């Protein structure tokens, strides 16, 4: 089962930012998205995750196969590490958060409230959510923000295992993850020319 994008155009704030994006992602592959700030990496990932509609083009993916890792980790500060992770496991219908806790080096922090975690620890917890989602296609938006070098290496290991287990990942990142096998997709050739105004914008006079 492949993840295929054909002739995709995506818009942000009513303005088309990327057009003609083509990509095929097979199990075991990783693709790194590159491009200047504001080129539309996050918009592309949100569109692929199904959070916003595409202007044109098709996205073909197996049903219920995408796990989206956003800028925000979706953590509840008054819940403990274990409770946060167990919630996402229950939502995704998987069991056993133990391996994910151990894998992301969070086992010692399990009873700590998320409010008391450092930024890097929060991010590790956010990434552990991907492991308990049990989904093969990871769409990651700057996954290494606020991680130290040891944690980046840890995450690269997790990613490598995920790929070896038949998963795939599409990652927007600026730093080198240490994944030589990953393909790099430069988004600059797909930049929309002329800033076509999309017709779907809302007129929000009162807001």
């Amino acid at each position: 089962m492949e993840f295929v994008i054909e002739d995709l155009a995506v818009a942000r704030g009513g303005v088309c930012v990327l057009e003609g994006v083509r990509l095929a992602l097979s199990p075991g592959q990783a693709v790194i998205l590159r491009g200047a700030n504001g080129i539309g990496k996050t918009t592309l990932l949100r569109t692929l995750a199904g959070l916003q509609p595409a202007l044109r083009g098709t996205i073909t993916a197996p049903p219920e196969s995408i796990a989206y890792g956003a800028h925000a980790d979706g953590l509840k500060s008054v819940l403990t590490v274990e409770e946060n992770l167990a919630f996402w496991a229950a939502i995704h219908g998987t069991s056993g958060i133990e391996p994910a806790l151990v894998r992301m080096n969070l086992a010692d922090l399990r009873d700590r409230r998320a409010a008391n975690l450092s930024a890097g620890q929060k991010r590790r917890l956010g990434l552990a959510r991907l492991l308990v989602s049990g989904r093969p296609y990871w769409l990651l938006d700057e996954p290494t923000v606020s991680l130290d070098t040891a944690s980046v290496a840890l995450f690269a290991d997790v990613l490598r295992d995920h790929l070896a287990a038949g998963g795939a990942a599409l990652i927007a990142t600026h730093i080198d993850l240490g994944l030589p096998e990953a393909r790099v997709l430069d988004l600059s050739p797909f930049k929309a020319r002329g800033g076509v105004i999309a017709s779907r914008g809302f007129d929000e006079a009162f807001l």
Partner: protein
Amino acid sequence: MIALLIRDLRLALRAGGGFGLGLAFFLLVAVLVPLGVGPEGTTLAKIAPGVLWVGALLACLLSLDRIFALDFEDGTLDLLATAPIPLEGVVAIKAFAHWLVTGLPLVLAAPVLGVLLHLPQAGYGWLVLSLLLGTPGLSAIGAFGAALTVGLKRGGLLLSLLVLPLYVPTLIFGAEVVKRGAAGMAVEVPLLLLAGITLGAQAALPFASALALRINLR
């Protein structure tokens, strides 16, 4: 789904969840009205059904903006939208959780506050029953308003403006049930209409709310 309900209840009960805020507000309204209107039992008994219902409605309104705003801010809503449970179900569960922590305590506290307002004895049963039937509808309608205003800064005020007019039918029929019940008249018609509004809101609004959320997440 059950995990979401448990999580929402846990969040409401822990520090900063705002649990009890609505109940305290309801209590204050019921205490302040006799102070303002005066202690005459007959006057209070006459206005008690209306005051209790308006109080319950405003107390319900207080915590509405928290239904989705907190989840929107920390990114949980994005992740729930991509999770395997339908967004309509998420909305329905969150409205139910809101009712459990806001509406249900109001229902339970209302008879005690009825004493403060000299509610005639015959009215107590109808007060509890009408609130029990009406408040789930308030939570469902409120969740719709919260979904519409979720991305907005200071959406709380706009939320009140949107939701209060939608609360009018529930208020009219709810207060009417108590008024008639207290006077010993037949209550079937307003009671059935009240139940109808609640059931209709529960059935239809989660779909509208989910659509509003999807648009706001874009």
